[in-house]
């Protein structure tokens, strides 16, 4: 490599470094609203719980086998034979439970504060969607161990969804294509749980954070 090309490459690296430094300085100079205190932390807690769900979910997926013949045994193996497997599964399950409670508390609080009024309609809609998604996470995740409790819960839930007029039968058919719970149901629940819902959640959280950064918190207006 000639000396001029080397200087050019070094300049590009230095330029990228300075741009990165400028970006970090810009992020570092961002200030959080002084009103972000108390129950406002419910939103940060929800994001952290989702992060725990992601990390523990990936660890669980390393051992889980989404097949009715081996789903139960793989879950049992994870809990009994894998070091700290029981801990990872327990944290994943509890994080999901707490996520529903935290998002529900956040939505109720925003409702009582009328934080859905202009210009925060977007944040409100995303909050309600996140509550539905948190419930969907719980529902789809419960079937995955393929134990008798999970099957009963899934069957009852699918019956309820099916009974909702208009959209219910379509959604139930998408989640469970056959007459009875079987391999197709498990793979659809698994795909929804690990592929569809996490991406939608991440998108909702990203857009929500962006909207809050743009509009500020309720009460920021002078």
């Amino acid at each position, binding site marked *: 490599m000639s000396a001029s090309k080397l200087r050019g490459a070094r300049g590009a690296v230095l330029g990228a470094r300075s741009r990165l430094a400028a970006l970090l300085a810009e992020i570092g*100079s961002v200030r959080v609203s002084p009103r972000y205190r108390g129950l406002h932390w419910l939103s940060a807690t929800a994001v952290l719980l989702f992060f725990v769900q992601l990390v523990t979910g990936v660890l669980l997926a390393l051992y889980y086998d989404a097949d009715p013949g081996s789903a139960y045994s793989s879950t049992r193996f994870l809990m009994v034979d894998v070091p700290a497997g029981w801990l990872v599964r327990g944290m994943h399950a509890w994080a999901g439970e707490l996520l529903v409670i935290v998002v529900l508390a956040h939505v109720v609080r925003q*409702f009582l504060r009328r934080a859905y009024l202009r210009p925060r309609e977007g944040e409100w809609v995303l909050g309600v969607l996140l509550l539905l998604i948190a419930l969907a996470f719980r529902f789809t995740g419960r079937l995955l161990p393929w134990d*008798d409790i999970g099957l009963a819960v899934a069957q009852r839930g699918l019956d309820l969804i099916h009974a909702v007029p208009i959209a219910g039968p379509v959604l139930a058919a998408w989640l469970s294509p056959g007459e009875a719970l079987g391999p197709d149901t498990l793979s659809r629940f698994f795909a929804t749980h690990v592929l569809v819902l996490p991406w939608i959640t991440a998108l909702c959280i990203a857009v929500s954070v962006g909207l809050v950064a743009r509009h500020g918190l309720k009460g920021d207006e002078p």
Partner: protein
Amino acid sequence: MMVLLHDGVDQATVDAVIARAEELGLSVAPVEGRRGRALAVSGPELGRALALRGTPGVAEILTRRTALAGGEPLWPHFVLRVTTLFLLLLATLALLAGFLPPGLGDDGGAVRDHAPTVTTEWYLRAPSAIDDRLGSTGLLLLGLLWAALLFMPLVDRFDAQTPAGRTGALAVRVLGLAVVAALVLLGVVGSP
């Protein structure tokens, strides 16, 4: 852009802030907001208003609705708080997982010939109870309730500046709480 002033700031300090803003080529109009005294700043070089940060009497500088100054810095203060919360959450989750582990029933493949006697998850109890009592009409109403929640900005159009609007807004909140209480009650006493 708004420059918020400290509570109880004297007129001489306010005049000094105005003079400083005008030095920077900005137009200033004093206003009385819900959060106290403020200066509405305008001009072609609006970004110069940030130079007012640190001027005696200035509490916070707001651009549109976003706090630029006066809040907690993202780094390191806020990040450290979030990290602390994260560690507390991890500890809580580990304790819950240790003392109240999630159950694992019998193998679903082996017991398919008989219906297991299990209690439905808590979030399904209210819809189950509604389905048992009202059938699909009740479930449709529940779906409409979710839709109303989603479109709350369109449902609640009351103007809180007027007495009638305040009453309407209060009614919406009371109604919302009553629905939540009813669903929780159904979840507790409802069928498994």
